[in-house]
């Protein structure tokens, strides 16, 4: 590594021979403007904005800093009159082509351009080539290229047709300095989802994640689609990124399991009359929750899809709950979170809030008081199940609004309430895969798909399978305090099981009387728990009580009644049959 001395604007520094000048300048804090430069791709040297003066052995040259290799003894001047004159004219030329690009206008201001002499064109692409280079060098998809030459040069795809090689990674939109390239999320326009998930393929799951380390989403990661990119690995100083990691299947032997797989929100599209997915300003409560969060899409402001502030907001309770068409049960938490959102939305936007409820379920400490507080705040509560949300205006007041049609049961009228924004308080339901999960743990589901507890009052956290416990919304809709309490209970029971140091066997295990056994071995393959083994010497089957779960299948099959089940012997059951049929 040969070091050379370079002086930039009077600052002397050392750098490796042939380093691009712009990097050396960056190191000493001298700012040189660039447009077509990006640290991730090879320098292209086409915008010429980074032109600087280089003095060397009495010779003066104007060169582009992004790709000029430094040599020993050069003196660089980045703000001479000649340089500034050059940059000013380059900006005027650019504005003649792309006159309304904010970035160019900002730069133009720095060089004293108020009225560009060649006018302002309407193009937005400055032909910097960043998108082309990122797509081919970093992403490896090779979708974009330059076509034609001279003034007709443009960036596009082969044959100007949408390319099937484009993986919609968004890298081109990300590096484009003018905002000329945009990514259109077509699904977003249909479903109106606010971005709730991560924005990049490598991301830290949440602010509270433990460990607080990023993970890579295999399905979005460019490297797994094109074998290129790996920009994350390039910038990681600790060299901690390994794309070659494979899934590891580990077998862990445990003594007890707590299943706390939670719930999923009811899909608001299952209640189509409320317009979710059809009208842009119908949101689910979870989306509004995200919106009012300070780290959300609007930094905590409550805004309509077009960016304006709503003046009236309607919150519809019991969406997907207490409904024969979706779920008959009450989801328990919606009333309280609806009140919370009513309060927050009013606080953030000053909008008039309407709550449409069937019953107000604000049980427990402080909740009824909160409800009263809202009444005092001016929140209007209308008791009635909302019939529909529509955008048909019948009166001038309803124009451009969403109209909520509801029977106000206390007033005895059918009312039409125009609002700007509708919030659907969606209920909780069992997860889609609940059936698969419960089979894995040998549990049952109750109606509506929640996991079945051993006893609704006396054993809420254990299941019919010893050692498997359930907690939280997997067992049934509940709020956070209840979930936490139940979690503690499940943990305690799980611990208790381990702590005992002993395992209680079922009382109703089977046994085999050796003398009666004929060695037919019918019972051996029947046992799902492999509790029966055939003793080749004695030529009889033997049963391991520790493994036996007490199903009795072997007993029913044994032709010689050698196998019997404690508490369920043939004699006992026969006696029961007789007893039941006594006249």
């Amino acid at each position, binding site marked *: 590594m040969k070091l050379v001395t370079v002086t930039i604007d009077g600052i002397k520094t050392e750098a490796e021979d042939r380093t691009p000048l712009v990097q050396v300048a960056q190191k000493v804090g001298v700012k040189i403007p660039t447009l077509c430069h990006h640290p991730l791709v090879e320098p292209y040297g086409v915008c010429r904005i980074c032109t600087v003066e280089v003095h060397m052995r009495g010779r003066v040259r104007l060169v582009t800093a992004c790709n000029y290799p430094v040599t020993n003894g050069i003196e660089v001047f980045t703000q001479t009159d000649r340089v500034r004159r050059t940059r000013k004219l380059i900006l005027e030329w650019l504005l003649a082509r792309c006159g309304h690009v904010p970035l160019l206008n900002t730069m133009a201001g720095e060089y004293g351009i108020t009225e560009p002499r060649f006018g302002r064109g309407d193009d937005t692409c400055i032909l910097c080539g960043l998108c082309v280079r990122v797509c081919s060098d970093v992403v490896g998809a090779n979708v974009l290229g330059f076509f034609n030459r001279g003034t007709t040069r443009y960036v596009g795809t082969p044959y100007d047709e949408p390319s099937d090689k484009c993986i919609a990674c968004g890298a081109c939109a990300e590096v484009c300095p003018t905002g000329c390239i945009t990514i259109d999320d077509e699904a977003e326009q249909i479903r109106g989802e606010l971005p709730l998930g991560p924005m990049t393929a490598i991301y830290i799951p949440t602010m509270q994640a433990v460990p607080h380390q990023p993970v890579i989403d295999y399905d979005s990661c460019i490297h797994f689609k094109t074998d290129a990119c790996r920009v994350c690995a390039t910038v990681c100083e600790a060299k901690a990124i390994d794309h070659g990691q494979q899934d590891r299947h580990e077998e862990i032997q445990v003594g007890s399991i707590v299943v706390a797989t939670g719930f999923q929100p009811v899909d608001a599209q299952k209640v189509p009359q409320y317009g979710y997915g059809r009208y842009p300003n119908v949101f689910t409560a979870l989306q509004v929750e995200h919106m009012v969060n300070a780290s959300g899409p609007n930094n905590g402001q409550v805004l309509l899809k077009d960016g304006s502030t709503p003046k009236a907001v309607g919150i519809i309770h019991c969406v997907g709950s207490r409904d024969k068409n979706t779920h008959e049960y009450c989801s328990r938490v919606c009333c309280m979170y609806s009140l919370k959102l009513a309060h927050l939305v009013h606080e953030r936007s000053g909008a008039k809030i309407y709550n449409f409820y069937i019953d107000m379920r604000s049980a427990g400490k402080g909740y009824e008081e909160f409800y009263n507080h809202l009444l005092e705040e001016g929140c209007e509560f209308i008791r009635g199940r909302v019939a529909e949300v529509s955008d048909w205006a019948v009166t001038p007041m309803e124009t451009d609004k969403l109209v909520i049609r509801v029977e106000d049961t206390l007033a005895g009228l059918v009312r039409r309430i125009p609002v700007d924004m509708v919030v659907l308080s969606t209920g909780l339901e069992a997860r889609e895969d609940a059936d698969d999960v419960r089979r894995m743990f040998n549990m*049952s*589901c109750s109606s509506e798909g929640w996991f079945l507890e051993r006893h609704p009052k006396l054993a809420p956290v254990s299941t*019919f399978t010893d050692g498997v416990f359930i907690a939280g919304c997997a067992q049934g809709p509940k709020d956070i305090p209840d979930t936490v309490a139940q979690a503690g209970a499940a943990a305690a029971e799980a611990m208790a099981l381990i702590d005992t140091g002993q395992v209680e066997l079922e009382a109703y295990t089977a046994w085999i009387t050796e003398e009666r056994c004929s060695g037919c071995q019918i019972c051996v393959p*029947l046992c*799902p728990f492999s509790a029966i083994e055939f003793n080749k010497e004695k030529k009889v089957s033997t049963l391991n009580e520790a493994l036996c779960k007490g*199903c009795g299948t072997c007993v029913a099959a044994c032709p010689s009644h050698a196998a019997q089940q404690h508490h*369920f012997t043939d004699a006992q*059951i026969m006696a029961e*049959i007789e007893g039941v*049929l006594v006249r």
Partner: protein
Amino acid sequence: MATTTIPVTTAFEPRIVAFFCNWCTYTASDLAGTARLAYEPNAPVIRVMCSGRIDPQFVLKALQEGADGVLIGGCHPGDCHYQEGNYKTLRRFRLLKRILTQFGVDDARVRLEWISASEGDRVQHVINEMTDQLRTLGPWHARN
């Protein structure tokens, strides 16, 4: 609250012996109870741990002792608390039915139902239906 009128007549009332597996069908009948679902009282329940415990001899014994019908209740296939017990039950039941038919036992008299722990209403339905059917069919004259 639903009530059922118990016929105070000397009309024929069928007697059904129900063998319910502990985890699913027995729990379901418990659920029917807590939900106050009324059903015919004609089917006293004998609890076994798994429907796989049910020896075909139990069915024969029940019929011999005067039962007009036998109901076997177990977990849905795939959901057996002991993995596979209900499959054994199914096999045995099929073979048993063939023999019973040869004995002249009507098809409706011996019945296998899969009822899961949350299906309390199904317990109600099955018992009511079976009772109704057997009323029409009349008694099973085993002793005769």
